């Protein structure tokens, strides 16, 4: 465990070396959220609410989901690059689990972005437009838990696709397609409240709403009591399922590794 924490810490510290990146990261997040809010301001027009959803709720949804999607982004070509240039062989010899090491490093850099990209962006956006307060202190706390679970869901989805590099020439195309599906169905660009019912029903059976939308709902207090517990459980369930699938691909794939020379 110590080793993984060190991996995470190292990635976290690495990022401090680029202050310009931090500034741009904040600007990027703020700009994206502001633009999406402008679009919905125009869509709402004079209406104070649509289907019981107020504009502030939409703005809150965008701030959380778009902001976090910036935090949650990491190098998705990592495994493929390691495999292509053969350095994966050195990695496999190390006495640490390669998967968990990848996760630890990604968590390290995401932690940095959470503190130095997301938090400042939240402050700026709160000045610009009205953002809903959390329903209660507990809902903020539970949301934090849910965000972490959401991160794992997204990470595992990416990991599964990354392992396909053992079979196909380049995972880039499939990775892009995966991200298209995630972007549309997870509610970052289109709040799930406004998704057509038929599509919404399908999304309920996918892991995508477990990434950002469950945390948003918890924050706004849209789910409480039993329903809230169920939402958190659904996140855990998806983590379990995706972990199992990822493990399956990883075990099969790693057997195919043949490194020539060094």
């Amino acid at each position: 465990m110590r080793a993984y924490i060190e991996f995470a810490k190292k990635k976290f510290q690495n990022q401090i070396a680029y202050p310009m990146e931090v500034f741009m990261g904040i600007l990027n997040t703020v700009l994206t959220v502001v633009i999406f809010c402008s679009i919905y301001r125009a869509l709402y027009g004079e209406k104070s609410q649509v289907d019981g959803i107020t504009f502030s709720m939409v703005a809150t949804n965008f701030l959380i989901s778009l902001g976090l999607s910036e935090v949650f982004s990491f190098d998705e070509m990592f495994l493929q690059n390691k495999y292509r240039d053969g350095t994966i062989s050195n990695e496999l010899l190390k006495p640490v689990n390669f998967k968990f090491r990848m996760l630890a490093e990604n968590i390290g850099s995401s932690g940095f972005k959470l503190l130095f990209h997301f938090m400042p962006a939240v402050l700026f956006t709160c000045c610009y437009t009205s953002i809903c307060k959390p329903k209660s202190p507990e809902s903020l706390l539970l949301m934090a838990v849910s965000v972490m679970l959401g991160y794992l869901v997204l990470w595992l989805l990416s990991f599964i696709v990354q392992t396909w590099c053992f079979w196909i020439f380049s995972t880039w195309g499939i990775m892009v397609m995966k991200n298209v599906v995630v972007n549309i169905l997870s509610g970052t660009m289109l709040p799930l409240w406004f998704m057509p019912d038929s599509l919404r029903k399908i999304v309920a059976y996918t892991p995508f709403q477990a990434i950002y939308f469950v945390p948003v709902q918890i924050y706004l207090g849209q789910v409480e009591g039993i329903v809230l517990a169920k939402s958190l459980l659904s996140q855990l369930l998806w983590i379990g399922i995706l972990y199992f699938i990822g493990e399956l691909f990883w075990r099969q794939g790693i057997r195919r590794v043949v490194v020539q020379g060094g």
Partner: protein
Amino acid sequence: MIGELKIAIQALKMSCLSRLQYRADTILATFAVFFREATGIIVIYLTLLKFDSIHGWNVYEMLFLFSLLFLTYSIIVILYADLRDFSCMIREGRFDLLLLRPRGLLVQLISNNADVIAALGHGTLGILLFVLSAGKVGITWNFSTIIYYLGAVISGVLIQGGIFIIFSAFSFYFVETGSLREIFYWNMRKFAGYPISIFNKWIQSLMIYVVPFAFVNYFPAQFLLRKPDMAEYPTLYIYIAPFVGFFVYLIAYGFWRFSVKRYESTGN
């Protein structure tokens, strides 16, 4: 001039051939680009199923607005792929190679590489959107509108090509220009498909006067569609839209000529 054109065609052929080495991967990547770019379109379509229109623009008018963005970009990546990735080129020292050849620098940069995958992905989407929307937005296609439209496309290519040249010229002053491009080109391009009238004044001015995306699609579309939100801007803008590209390009060219003198190799 003829010689340069021959080189350009030869280079385009080579770009295509080198991609065809990995046929399955190229097809997959083209689909990927197509769907990545279509994300925004799918989102708008789904959103407008709920809200009907945005600031008076219905779904077909929105598709028309976006089609101009994709069509122009597909031409740009054939011509300006090297200038798009220019800071990378400088870092790797590949730019030095061009200095040794007996041709103009910009000519070489423009004719050298083509991003075939992006051109196909964006181009297909642009044509698809145009076909879907052009008959349904109430434009009477006659000689003058067609000429205007073609002019707007050329101008749109020159505007964005000019922006790439200016950003590339910045590379002679600053080591890293990636984040500058990220904010002022890529990020803005994501939203340039929306009618600019929905944004606040700051962003509007940015899109009209600084990085003039508004002249790539919004004003040309206004000439053809005449939506009520045009009242917020001088009518002159829709008439000058097909010419703004030449103006931007001239500035960019001047700035490039001025800046390229400062170039010092990063060495290798």
